[in-house]
């Protein structure tokens, strides 16, 4: 299976690899997936007082598409409000990276990681977590 140029680009030059201090109350952390399934994503956001995401970092255990999906997610998150970030849809990632059907689960995982990070931030800051009602594609 050939990878798209964008997957290769993100995989070869991953953006925003790293770790934020998860004990900081302005940092939201989402850890999704499982080692047994071959994919684990950790996505972190740094949020300012206006609920705007000022920084995002990731680390991912997984295939090239999983790494690219999380790298892309960090790019998209920076500069968004947490409300807008909540609207990122896995199919946007699929489209941007031209993921084949067998790799759609990588984009689902990235969306889950975004939502988990935002909810972690919300709970830490006295807001109710937002339950996702969406049925994944």
């Amino acid at each position, binding site marked *: 299976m050939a*990878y798209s140029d964008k997957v290769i680009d993100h995989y070869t030059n*991953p953006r925003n690899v790293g770790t934020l201090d998860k004990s900081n109350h302005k940092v939201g952390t989402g850890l999704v997936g499982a080692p*047994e399934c*071959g994919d684990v994503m950790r996505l972190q956001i740094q949020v300012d007082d206006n609920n705007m995401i000022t920084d995002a970092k990731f680390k991912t255990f997984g*295939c090239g598409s*999983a790494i690219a999906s999380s790298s892309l997610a960090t790019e998209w998150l920076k500069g968004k409000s947490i409300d807008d970030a909540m609207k990122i849809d896995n199919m946007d990632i699929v489209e941007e990276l031209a993921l084949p059907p*067998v790799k759609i*689960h990588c984009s689902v995982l990235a969306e*889950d990681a975004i939502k988990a990070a935002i909810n972690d931030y919300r709970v830490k800051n006295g807001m109710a977590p937002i339950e996702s009602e969406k049925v994944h594609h």
Partner: protein
Amino acid sequence: MNLPIYLDNNATTPMDPRVLEAMLPYFTTKFGNAASRNHPFGWVAEEGVDYAREQVAKLIGANEKEIIFTSGATESDNLAIKGVFEMYKDKGNHIITTVTEHKAVLDACKHVEKLGGKVTYLPVKEDGILDLEVLEQAMTNDTILVSVMYGNNEIGVIQPIKEISAIAHKYGALFMTDAVQAVGKIPVDVNADGIDLLALSAHKIYGPKGVGALYVRRKGPRVKVTAQMDGGGHERGMRSGTLNVPGIVGLGKACELCGLEMESEAKRLSAMRDRLQESLTVLEESYVNGNVEHRLPHVANISFKYVEGEGLMMAMKDLAVSSGSACTSASLEPSYVLKSLGLSDDLAHSSIRFGLGRFSTDEEVDYAIEVTKKAVTHLRELSPLWEMFKEGIDLDSIEWAEH
């Protein structure tokens, strides 16, 4: 050194130019049908087939009359298992095999179950080797066939074939082996090893794709299989269909070359493989899968913990290897062979199989070592699991969201 480098010789091998040379006339001037008994075109083709039959037989210590040409090892496995079941089902309906067999054996056994047969799929020990006591306990008066592979395609582990065949025979069962990975790589002798049926393939031994053979014992005991392909009664009635003469000639030549070069080649490859393995297991948290003593000379299967195999292969640019990770498969299930060794799923996902071959060079191995080390290090920098491991967090203590 040309890139990319091919280190996936358990999947298939490049054809040796000497094999191609032997085959070429049989595509053009010697094009006859080996079954045409009444003119020189047929005779020439038949001569080519007969010579190839001797070459194949010689490599495994058989008589040329015991070689049935097929389209490859998958067909040979199917013919052996289904053919033995159909032929001997009045004697008994039980077949024993192992969980680490190739899919061609496992799926043929599943087919037999649908026909009313009983199949026991024996587990293997942690090193991939079948426990002989477990085998003996599974034998019954109804057991007609024991099918255990010679060398494993994923981890290279070699089974104690002599001991296994002795147990099968003690209970009056036939012994069959899928020897695709072993023939031509290590000495295989159907008489010394007590083999009644043996499947082999040309494209794993530097021959062409689309041709293989099934050895069927003719004496002590005389073994028969029910044909699975009906037609002109070729191959002593066991496998109908016009013979693939160029392919068969290629298989013969490939066997001859392996016979001549196997001993020195096994030494060369195992030295290279050991060097590769030693250099890579220097990396923290890397593990060799399967028994390392009873192993084919050209294979090393290594798990690099906390990195995922498919992601790793992508970073091992210009290296053609394979992984037990099943990230591309719809089921997301990692290798059943590695799992049957008791490996946890995450270690199975983290495995890479290096398969050296006749055309592998020291220079290529040096390059592979460098690239693999860099790739593992790079991906661990990206891995949240590696970070947790380094912080001393027990990954088993985390409640993972299975997806």
